[in-house]
């Protein structure tokens, strides 16, 4: 989260440089290995903290985080396999959902009018792809540091 904040995505609109949103990858991991109660609350808290460091309302990020978590949670149950490809795909769709909701709210509710195509192709899509590509490494990292704790609590996917 700190690393993501360091390369705060919200300040890179219109730039070619896109840093992967590691928080989303973390949320996707949580949705796979934690139960829905803990995962839902944790995703809200994580994105609330993330949002606290942005110029926008942290509750907005909390809301988007929960939506992303829900998307990821549902996709994990639909795919029901645990490999690199599924990690990448689910992270990509969750990240796409995250940026889509963020864009829609920022565009329509806050009245900050970005150019659609510019946002999609120069920010939303590259950021989603970057997060998806980095997700196997994030998963591996989380598995190394907390594999036993998380896996024992929820075997939802593997079951």
């Amino acid at each position, binding site marked *: 989260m*700190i690393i993501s904040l*360091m390369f705060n995505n919200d300040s890179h609109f219109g730039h070619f440089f896109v840093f992967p949103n590691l928080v989303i990858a973390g949320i996707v991991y949580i949705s796979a290995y934690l139960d829905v109660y803990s995962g*839902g609350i944790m995703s809200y808290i994580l994105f609330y903290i993330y949002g*606290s460091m942005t110029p926008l309302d942290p*509750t*907005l990020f*909390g*809301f988007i985080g929960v939506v992303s978590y*829900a998307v990821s949670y549902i996709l994990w149950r639909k795919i029901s396999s645990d490999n690199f490809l599924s990690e990448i795909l689910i992270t990509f769709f969750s990240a796409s959902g995250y940026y889509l909701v963020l864009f829609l709210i920022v565009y329509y509710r806050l009245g900050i009018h970005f150019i659609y195509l510019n946002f999609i192709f120069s920010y939303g899509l590259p950021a989603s792809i970057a997060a998806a590509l980095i997700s196997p490494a994030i998963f591996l990292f989380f598995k190394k540091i907390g594999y036993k704790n998380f896996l024992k609590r929820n075997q939802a996917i593997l079951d």
Partner: protein
Amino acid sequence: MRRLNFKKYRDAVFLFIIIIISASIYILSLNGIKIGSFFSDFISYSVYEVYTVVDYPVDISEKIYGNYIDLLSVKAENNVLKSKLKIISYKLDKYREYKIENRKLKTLLILKNSVGNKTVPAAVVLHGIEGWFHSLYINKGAKSGIKAGDGVISYDGVVGRVIHAGARYSRVIPITDPKCVFSVIDADTGTMGIAQGFGDGYMKMRFVFNSQQVHKGDTILTSGLGGVFTPGINVGKVTAVTKKNYDIFQKITVTPYKNLFNGKYVLVEK
């Protein structure tokens, strides 16, 4: 089986509820009811400190990278400036050469105006080094009216005589060559004699009687007799005088002036 379906249903309900709650909190926040603003402020300030510390290396690396990029641009600019400097240096050398040439030509012009005989200006195209080449080549020949036997002078003094005149070039023997013979005068005592080269970089002043006055260090000039050289042109200095009772003439050694072989532009006296 029913419990599993119920579990899935329960999860979906929970997800739906939590989405509704988070959306409601956001909507309330938009309407001015800030739930948890204290927490967000606290998180913001506390994480900011961490963020600042963690961001420091990134900031430093960005500065280093920026400096590196600047360095690259400076390097590229330096290469361009170096190439420009080379061109300017080359031009400067050319201008220096022109300056030297201009000075030499000016002195040659002064000499030309001071010499009574008809003269032809010429440039030495091949410099003889004393002891190696006993002749010089100039870029004027018979087409310019030069013929064998003409005297060659420069601003510094007598250079030699033309030994062969080609159509567009001439070969000149220096005054230190044994074949080069001409009339000279001691500028200090007025004693006259005939200068002839030794061939080893020196000359001898011949036919000076023992009774005549010639001293070591005297300046030797052309006398003008014989009509080859204009009188009063520098030849050299007396470096040795030997008198013997049984000999009629003195043995006088003359060292030519310093820049005998350094002149580029000369005048050929006709």
